[in-house]
């Protein structure tokens, strides 16, 4: 069954079509969310939310872009929203702690280890993911889609609704920021 048949069937509320869609694209959605939020549990929640939204709003998908491009956009929006919410909560907890109010203790998360990284590169990758987390949102998205999801610049530009040259520029800035952050890290820690 091809992509368009599946989507048409899903628009008619076909559950089997929906299951095929979830089974086909779940790894892509989960891996993208994991690259951005860097937490397995949160990425799992986001993946579920993405497919719930797909089910509820598939009628609005007109086919102007590829289905996977539409899925990437939903995943990125939800992942970034999740991160913003988390940051807001952290800031709020910090402000409350300044006023001496009891609040959740702000715990720094442990190093994130992506399960798809080769064993001998785990430590370096964990350091890299920490540095990726410091990047501005659009650089982080471009870097994640290109390096973690393996999309070409053309595909990244379609997902981000921008030009290939903008993606090149984003990647260039992301790499130079990462280099700067990593050299500072190694100067202090090695």
């Amino acid at each position: 069954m091809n992509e368009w048949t599946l989507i048409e069937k899903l628009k008619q509320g076909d559950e089997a079509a929906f299951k095929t869609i979830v089974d086909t694209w779940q790894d892509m959605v989960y891996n993208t969310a994991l690259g951005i939020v860097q937490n397995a549990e949160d990425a799992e929640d986001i993946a579920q939310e993405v497919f719930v939204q797909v089910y509820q709003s598939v009628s609005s998908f007109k086919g102007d872009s590829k289905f996977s491009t539409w899925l990437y956009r939903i995943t990125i929006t939800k992942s970034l929203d999740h991160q913003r919410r988390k940051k807001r909560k952290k800031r709020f907890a910090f402000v409350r702690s300044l006023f001496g109010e009891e609040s959740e203790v702000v715990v720094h998360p442990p190093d994130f280890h992506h399960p798809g990284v080769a064993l001998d590169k785990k430590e370096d990758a964990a350091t890299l993911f920490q540095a990726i987390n410091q990047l501005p949102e659009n650089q982080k998205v471009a870097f994640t889609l290109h390096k973690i999801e393996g999309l070409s610049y053309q595909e990244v530009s379609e997902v981000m609704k921008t030009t290939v040259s903008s993606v090149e520029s984003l990647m260039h800035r992301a790499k130079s920021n990462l280099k700067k952050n990593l050299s500072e890290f190694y100067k202090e820690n090695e």
Partner: protein
Amino acid sequence: MKKQSDIEKRVEETLNSVEGIQRATPAPWLFARVKGKLLKAEERTGWEVVGSFLSKPAVAVAGLFLIMALNGILLLNQQSGGSLSAGQTEIVPTDSESLIASSSSFDFENLVQP
């Protein structure tokens, strides 16, 4: 202190550490959990949906400002309401009308005769 070239080498190694990364896979039964979430979403009543919408901080704050603005407008309108606005004319009863109004309850017919 570390040599600059050593640091640059470490940075390059770190940047290349995600080359050839494999896709991560979610825990099994994702579809069952998605279905569970969908059922839960369908079970929500209209009032729950309205409640969760209104409890969003942005909506709550916007609502508060709207109420305050409406109060302010009403207050300003009331203050300026004492003077007549342009185009309005005051209806002044004529002498005969006021006589009728004032004497009606004291008609001689209604008065208790001694």
